């Protein structure tokens, strides 16, 4: 069972060495070297630097990722899969065969470059109608797949939609489909229940403005969490804090769910399965189970934050003056 907390994936360009050097200081759960976002004519310059950049990403306790393209799969994988890499983001697989090909390419590079076999995970970004349509076979094609999300911008272009920020054109099918298919993946298939969901709420999902206000990012992350997403790509360091907070159960939620648990336990003790909870409401087993999950999620978030704080403190001390 592979469980993790990854609320913020800070993306930086491998061609901006200053951003890369600085990335570990922003408290992101993951840092992503965005090779996919590098224009074609510059990719040749970006690929050779990835290997050197990987070790610094994790100094603040973040997981290290490289975002690669299906279109340049083999060239990108060869440049990305080196020790220190936790996983790749892959844009945009469309079929199970695509994912199998990526799995094989990554496996090959693990063997050549001395990376633990099977250790590199895959986060899939779907950017075409075909990919969304085939989502079930795509996300179950390899045990490396831990997370899936939509690349709204690419998907809207593929669909030929000129989107207005007022109305989410992907809401009724693509996002719902993604959440249900991903959450419904059999736990026996990959050793963990479901596939995590990556995405922030619309319109930031389609128009990810780096200068969005922290409050806008926070609200969008909260809506995404309520829509069953687990974390989001952050195009700017200012997004990291709001995403970390937005995807973490709040203190109020924690207090509420602790009260649910206490109420339910007290009811059980006198043989009741449905226990009054005030205002005409009741709690029963599913409420109790949800409370357990939310409390556990908060605990994992707190542990992750402590882990990163400790890593940053250590890295800070060893920093040359």
């Amino acid at each position: 069972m592979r469980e993790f907390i990854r609320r913020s994936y800070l993306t930086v360009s491998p061609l901006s060495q200053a951003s890369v050097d600085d990335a570990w200081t922003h408290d992101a759960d993951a840092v992503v070297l965005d090779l996919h976002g590098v224009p074609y004519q510059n990719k040749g310059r970006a690929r050779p630097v990835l290997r050197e950049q990987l070790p610094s990403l994790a100094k603040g306790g973040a997981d290290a990722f490289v975002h690669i393209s299906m279109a340049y799969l083999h060239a990108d994988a060869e440049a990305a899969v080196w020790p220190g890499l936790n996983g790749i983001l892959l844009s945009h697989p469309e079929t199970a065969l695509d994912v199998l090909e990526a799995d094989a390419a990554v496996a090959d590079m693990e063997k050549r470059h001395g990376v633990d076999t099977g250790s590199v995970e895959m986060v899939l970004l779907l950017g075409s109608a075909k990919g969304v349509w085939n989502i079930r076979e795509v996300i179950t094609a390899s045990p490396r797949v831990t997370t899936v999300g939509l690349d709204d911008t690419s998907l809207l272009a593929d669909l030929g939609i000129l989107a207005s920020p007022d109305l989410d054109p992907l809401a009724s099918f693509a996002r719902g489909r993604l959440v249900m298919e991903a959450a419904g993946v059999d736990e026996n298939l990959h050793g963990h229940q479901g596939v995590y969901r990556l995405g922030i709420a619309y319109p930031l999902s389609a128009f990810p403005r780096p200068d969005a206000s922290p409050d806008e990012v926070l609200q969008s992350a909260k809506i995404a969490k309520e829509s069953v997403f687990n974390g989001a790509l952050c195009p700017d360091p200012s997004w990291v804090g709001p995403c970390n907070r937005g995807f973490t159960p709040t203190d109020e939620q924690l207090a509420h769910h602790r009260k649910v648990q206490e109420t339910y336990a007290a009811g059980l003790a006198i043989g009741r399965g449905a226990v009054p909870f005030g205002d005409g409401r009741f709690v029963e087993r599913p409420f109790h189970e949800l409370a357990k999950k939310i409390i556990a999620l908060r605990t994992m978030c707190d542990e992750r934050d402590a882990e990163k704080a400790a890593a940053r403190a250590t890295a800070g001390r060893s920093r040359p003056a």
Partner: protein
Amino acid sequence: MEVNRAALFMAINNPRFIEAAWSRGIDGAILDFEDAVGEPHKVDARKLPGEVYPQITKASAIIQVRINHTYWAADLEAVVWPGLSGILYPKTESAEEVRLLDAKITELERLRGMRPGSVGIQPLIESARGVINSFEIAGASPRISSFGGGGGIGVDVGRDLAVEIVTGFPRAVGEYGAEGELAARALGMVVAGGARVGQGPGGDVVSGNTAFDEAAANRKSGFYTGRLCLHPNRVDPMVRGLTPPEEEVEEAEQVLLRFEELDNRGEVEGQLNGKTVDKWEAERARKLLEWADACAKKDRDKAAAMERNLAAAKGA
């Protein structure tokens, strides 16, 4: 046509609720063996159907039982007896599970001399995996006559997805409701649930205030199915809300007459009191009248039962 506008939900082992059920004006009862019955009480609960069923049927009400997903075989042995109308099967995730359930019910119907196929199955979809397998689940047994639950967005899906069901619970759940309704309509089934009835805003299950409006909205959208009531306060408003009022029945009769005239003249469309009448409107009117008839019959049966039960209570 089965009329079950308001089904009162009760733990099978709560005698206080069961004994009063006949006086509540219910169309049906859902006797729970699942979450409302504590784990240590489940074995004893299985001994109860013999004494509980007559207390429900004497009110001319339909009996459905919510069994445990985990203990389905033991529960079926205990509950499939004459008087039972259907099984609610919680946390259904695959067609295979439904086929197993169907086979066991068939065996018990044969052993216990019950009409073949008389016990229905209502799969309850309460997890992401259930949602994505909706179509094959809905088609897995001829005992399933209604499916879906746009209104059934319950805490169980939240439990599965580890999110709170908050007001306006957004997008993903639209997909959840839509998937079930689509499967039901594609298979020609009744869409279970319809608009959300049976639970007020903020999870309030006691107040009857909103129940009437919700039920009426359901009926006006063409959903002639009720939902469970977690509290007796909601029974009467839901029964009234789902029953077509006299003026709507009269209007439907006029629509049918008007359409007949048009049809005889070879026309496809006309007007009645400023509204368009065509074959779709006629079909809607026909369904409404059929539903109104069925409701009226149910209400007569219930009234007769109530009279008998009141007399018996006085005599006792």
